[in-house]
């Protein structure tokens, strides 16, 4: 016993063990979440074809009206209701306007409305939902009540009422969509933040004295980005639908401006004779919504593969 106490430790007495025992090596490098999401998204063929379509649509929305030999608003009453030809690529409408140009002007309107609605969702919804979720307690209860009451008022009615009062135009539609559009997003953010609030890293940040705003914008919101992005992608097609729907009813974008909804409505009078006037805008509208929907679904699967079935 006494000997062992005075035992001196020398280097030779220690043996270096194998640092990584076989079978426990980590096969790959750790991958950041974003690259992982991107990898899953890129392998999703359906979602990628949606992206390709949307990129093409965006390009055509920019250059389409420029490459056509005719502008989108000039009436040419000698050449009304013409079928597609070398001169008028997609034919003309009942006032002799070039459908090719009008179609891509419509794409501009649809994309602007969709993106604007998404932006408003993002700003209002995330801030409102973030505050609700982070503050909790009475503030949360009050703010939630307000959003519930706003939500319970049917959105179509709000939109139509606003359009009755204001001049119908693309901007009015965007304004009307933003009255209630952000509520769903705020609830998603609220739920996510309530969940995240009790995680250890939040406690750590708080114990180090991080301020409320810092906590919200630096820690909580970035970690809810997945659901936020997915919701945004699915907001876009529903906003595009709303714009087309209202323009179809004659409450939205007014002639001579061209929206797909207006074009479909204009074509209704003569659709038995000039079906192409309806086919082009209808097909593009459906394809655009389809592309956003499959892209959104793909994003959701990419962010949370557990959900994929």
């Amino acid at each position, binding site marked *: 016993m006494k000997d062992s106490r005075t035992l001196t430790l020398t280097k030779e007495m220690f043996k270096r063990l194998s640092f990584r025992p076989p079978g426990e090596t980590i096969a790959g490098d750790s991958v950041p979440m974003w690259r992982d999401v991107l990898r899953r998204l890129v392998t999703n063929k359906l979602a990628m074809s949606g992206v390709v379509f949307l990129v093409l649509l965006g390009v055509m929305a920019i250059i389409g009206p420029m490459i056509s030999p005719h502008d989108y608003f000039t009436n040419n009453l000698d050449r009304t209701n013409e079928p597609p030809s070398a001169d008028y690529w997609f034919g003309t409408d009942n006032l002799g306007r070039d459908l090719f140009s009008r179609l891509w002007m419509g794409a501009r309107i649809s994309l602007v409305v969709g993106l604007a609605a998404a932006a408003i969702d993002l700003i209002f919804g995330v801030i409102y939902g973030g505050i609700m979720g982070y503050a909790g307690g009475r503030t949360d209860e009050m703010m939630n009540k307000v959003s519930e009451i706003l939500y319970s008022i049917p959105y179509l009615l709000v939109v139509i009422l*606003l359009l*009755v*009062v204001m001049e119908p135009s693309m901007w009015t539609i965007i304004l009307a969509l933003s009255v209630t559009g952000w509520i769903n997003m705020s609830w998603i953010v609220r739920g996510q933040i309530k969940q995240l609030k009790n995680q250890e890293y939040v406690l750590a940040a708080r114990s180090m004295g991080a301020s409320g705003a810092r906590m919200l914008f630096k820690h909580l919101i970035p970690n809810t980005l997945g659901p936020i992005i997915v919701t945004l992608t699915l907001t876009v097609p529903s906003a595009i639908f709303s714009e087309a729907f209202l323009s*179809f009813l004659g409450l939205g974008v007014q002639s001579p401006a061209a929206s797909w909804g207006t074009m479909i409505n204009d074509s209704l009078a003569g*659709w038995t004779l000039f079906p192409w006037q309806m086919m082009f805008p209808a097909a593009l509208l459906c394809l655009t919504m389809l592309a956003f*929907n499959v892209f959104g679904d793909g994003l959701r699967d990419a962010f949370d593969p557990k959900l994929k079935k």
Partner: protein
Amino acid sequence: MVRYWGGKLVSVIISLFVLATATFFLMKAIPGDPFTSEKAVPPEVKAKLMAFYGLDKPIWEQYLIYLKKLIHLDLGTSMKSQYQTVSSIITDSFGYSLRLGIFAIIVSVIVGVGLGVVAAMYHRKAIDGIAMVIAVLGVSIPNFVLASMTQYLFGYKLQWFQVAGLNGPFDYVLPVLALAALPIAYIARLTRSTMLEVLNAEYIKTAKAKGLKRSVTIVRHALRNGILPVVTYVGPMTANILTGSVVVERIFGIPGLGKYFVDSVSNRDYTLIMGITLFYAVILMLARLLTDLLYGLVDPRIGLRSRKGASS
């Protein structure tokens, strides 16, 4: 329980009050009055008209009168269709919309649940793929496009159905299809994903182990839990179909409430706009209350807490 439903009722009343107030003041905010467009109205006649509709009183008094009438369910007189009351327009036209809507709901639930169940039973097989393609298309094809296209194809080209009107039972096919496409897609997706979960549950394995036929297992055991989320969709579905009826009635020339709503908006018939808006709001709120009620009934596991429905 009483507290819960009491709270629900109070929030419905608050919502309706907010909407009624907003509608009233929005209508008042419009420059001019409903008679400015009619040409050459002598000032005396106009004064009479204004007095008849109570438009000569100060705004707050008009507002109080309006609220008082609302409580007595008096929606006033249409400003454009000669001396028809708003209530009579609604009762005359709502029948068409109601029938269309109910058929659309029945079709949506049956087809949607059917598609979802079949897709879950043959998970990752061809049938599943087809069902999900239908679901994505249903979400992506706007109802007015579907209505116009089917009208062109089946009404005009193939002549299988009447192009417009609502006279025989076959006339319902195309409008109901256009209204039901989106709810079918949603319900199919909802049912499929819940059924996939349910089919892996222990009690389904027990049923299989007992030697029950597959069809019995699915219908008697799995479906009971599999269609629960469909109940939460009742509120949004009503909203979707109601919104859809506005365009579908227009395309197929059906004299339903949706058509009157659009007409009232383009005619600037303010009392009619206000009346139909409130009527729609009441229907949607009833649908939402019904959702909550049904959900408590069909799933006793769920307590009476406030829930968030899917977006409408």
